[in-house]
């Protein structure tokens, strides 16, 4: 029987929990909350608090030791192994297309894959498990290595391995070898040091070797060609020179396609083995077509995300607008298709054009990057240090708009109005030739401004979350989970700002005479004013120095209902804008290039 992808994953819960436990969904292990949107920020902290669940593990272990079948001893050992703890923090299980499995680091990801694979093997093909761990001298470590090599040679894709297993010929003869070679586990390196002859020439360096004890030869088991050997020195040099650029190494013989097993390379040299694994992972993560396994593109972020996409679901990047964005456990949101920062509503293709455009015009746009501006009233240089465009000069108290430099009065709570006017004013006065550049420059300025706003907000929020959350929890004895609403809101706000940023990039390319353009900008404006509203409010809480600290904290709590509502509002407005952007692209309103 062939199980579908989804079944395959849901079955796996049985492995992790003993069968008498009823675990319907969502968490794999240890995770206490069923709130799907909750993110784990402090993994170790959380892990600590989940420890009571440990008895599940112990129960499991005690059952396993009664297992009568020799072949399962190793399997059960694997369950008891510490890797169970390591993957415990990965959370959320596939339910539908939009679900992801998140791993806080690559090691956890690898361990999870090992467990999954192990489960697959014992469930689907008991015979293979026995082949893998049947030999009495196989240690747990070695069994694990074999599973790792199986994964590494198959793009870390369990589906792929399963497919291969299904297609195995059924006849008994050579079945074991067949399985091993299909799975890349055959072909160990063997060292030979006794020959019939007294002397033998190494075919690689051509040195004649007589003392086989001192200089042994190396050959690959199951490679039939007896000439495919080399002296140990040559073989090591050969392995070394190949290992940095590949994750599979062939037998040294000419065009020989026999692959050397990872496990024997490990026995040979552990660094070689680790390099192979590293390279294989890298290859898998860098593959843009592989939507199933993704490493967070953020620098220094080690998170891994598994999705429900299988290798046959090919996505056409040119037309897809409904981009999948995923968040890793550190809340780095990125686009699954191009593995860049999440950029809805603009498409990957247009985004690329946009960035090309920016690179072209970089020099003339330097001025935009300037962060200070003189106060329009008193000429004092003002640096913008928070995210809102409603400026108040610290010197003369004049209130103005950062974008148009005009008095804030009449901005109706948002600077959006002035943006629109300005764009149109510019269009009137410039001639046709200049128009495209002017247009670009304007949108670029909005783009950069939005980005700056986002960064400033992030700074503010780091402040808020680290200080505030600590204060609140000590003051009122509230748990971090109860205060999660603040985090949620801040995160949503950042994401909304990010969307605003990219919506300007999209607008640049669009035909502004079309009605949809108008609808899009309208949606954009709604989102914008909500952002401004929430942002300003949060800023107030942080900045209001007239209140003593405790009062400010209470204010945060008082605003809880508002903030929760605002969060879902922001979410909805983002969805609207994203959908509208999709319409824009689908209607082919791209006119500027």
């Amino acid at each position, binding site marked *: 029987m062939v199980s579908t992808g989804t079944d395959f994953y849901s079955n796996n819960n049985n492995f992790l929990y003993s069968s008498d436990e009823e675990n319907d969904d969502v968490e794999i292990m240890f995770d206490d909350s069923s709130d799907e949107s909750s993110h784990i920020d402090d993994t170790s902290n959380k892990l600590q608090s989940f420890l009571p669940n440990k008895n599940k593990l112990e129960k499991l272990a005690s059952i396993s030791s009664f297992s009568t079948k020799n072949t399962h001893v190793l399997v059960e050992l694997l369950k008891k192994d510490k890797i169970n703890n390591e993957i415990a923090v990965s959370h959320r299980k596939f339910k539908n297309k939009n679900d992801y499995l998140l791993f806080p680091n690559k090691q956890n990801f690898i361990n999870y894959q090992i467990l999954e694979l192990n489960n697959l093997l014992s469930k689907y093909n008991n015979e293979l498990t026995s082949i893998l761990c049947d030999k009495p001298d196989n240690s747990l470590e070695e069994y694990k290595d074999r599973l790792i090599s199986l994964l590494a040679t198959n793009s870390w894709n369990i589906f792929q391995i399963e497919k291969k297993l299904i297609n195995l010929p059924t006849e008994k003869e050579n079945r074991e070898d067949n399985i091993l070679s299909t799975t890349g586990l055959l072909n160990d390196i063997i060292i030979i040091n006794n020959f019939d002859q007294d002397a033998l020439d190494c*075919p*690689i*360096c*051509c*040195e004649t070797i007589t003392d086989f004890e001192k200089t042994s030869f190396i050959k690959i088991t199951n490679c039939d060609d007896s000439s*495919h050997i*080399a002296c140990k020195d*040559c073989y090591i*040099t*050969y392995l070394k*020179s190949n290992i940095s650029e590949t994750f599979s190494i*062939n037998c*040294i*013989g*000419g*065009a*020989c396609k026999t692959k050397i097993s990872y496990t024997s390379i490990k026995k040979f040299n552990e660094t070689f083995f680790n390099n192979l694994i590293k390279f294989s992972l890298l290859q898998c993560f860098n593959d843009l077509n592989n939507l199933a396994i993704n490493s967070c593109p953020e620098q220094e972020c080690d998170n891994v995300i598994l999705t429900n996409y299988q290798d046959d679901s090919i996505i056409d990047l040119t037309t897809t607008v409904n981009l999948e964005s995923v968040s890793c456990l550190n809340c780095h949101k990125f686009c699954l298709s191009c593995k860049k920062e999440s950029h809805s509503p603009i498409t990957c293709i247009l985004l690329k054009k946009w960035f090309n455009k920016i690179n072209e015009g970089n020099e003339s746009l330097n001025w935009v990057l300037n962060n200070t501006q003189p106060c329009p009233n008193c000429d004092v240089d003002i640096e913008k240090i928070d995210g809102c465009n409603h400026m108040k000069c610290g010197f003369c108290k004049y209130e103005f708009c950062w974008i148009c430099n005009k008095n804030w009065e009449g901005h109706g709570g948002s600077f959006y109005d002035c943006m629109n006017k300005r764009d149109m004013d510019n269009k009137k006065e410039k001639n046709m030739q200049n128009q495209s550049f002017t247009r670009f420059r304007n949108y670029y300025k909005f783009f950069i401004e939005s980005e700056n706003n986002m960064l400033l907000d992030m700074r503010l929020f780091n402040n808020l979350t680290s200080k505030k959350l600590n204060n609140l929890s000590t003051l009122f004895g509230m748990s971090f989970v109860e205060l999660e609403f603040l985090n949620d809101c801040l995160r949503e706000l950042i994401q909304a700002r990010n969307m605003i940023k990219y919506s300007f990039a999209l607008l640049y390319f669009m035909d502004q005479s079309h009605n949809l353009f108008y609808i899009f900008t309208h949606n954009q404006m709604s989102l914008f004013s909500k952002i401004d509203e929430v942002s300003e409010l949060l800023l107030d809480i942080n900045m209001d120095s007239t209140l003593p600290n405790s009062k400010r904290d209470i204010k945060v709590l008082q605003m809880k209902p508002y903030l929760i509502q605002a969060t879902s509002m922001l979410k909805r407005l983002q969805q609207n804008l994203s959908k509208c952007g999709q319409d824009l692209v689908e209607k082919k309103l791209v006119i500027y290039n």
Partner: protein
Amino acid sequence: MSILPKRIIKETKNLIVDPVPGMKTEIPDEDNLRYLTVQMEGPGNSPYQGGVFQLELYLPEEYPMEPPKIRFLTPVYHPNIDKLGRICLDVLKDHWSPAFQIRTVLLSIQQLLGTPNPDDPLLSDIAELCKNDNAKYCEIAKEWTLKYAAEKKKE
């Protein structure tokens, strides 16, 4: 001067004593035994038939772990050989194995002359012609062979 590995001595000696049919290998500089020149006859039943092509070959420090470096000195009209004589051949790149020898490489190159691989070209214009108008391609290749690789040219 570094000591020449036994492998290189053996291979070069072999090439001179027992040459590959249709090829003549020479060591032009006794001070640099890693540098060889080869005269290769164009394979039969190909537009290169009758031509004698000059190649130069260098065995880098890492040989045989790294492939030999080799290029045509005679201009060749071929989709996998560029204007500087550089050759696009898998065994000279990622399909290299230390078990291959200079002999293997030379035979592969001769074979490449006879059976161009326009699907993995170095020069796309020649490849297009080779695929779409093979007669025309053969004609030009023959012309070049006559012009640059005629036997009498190397005296």
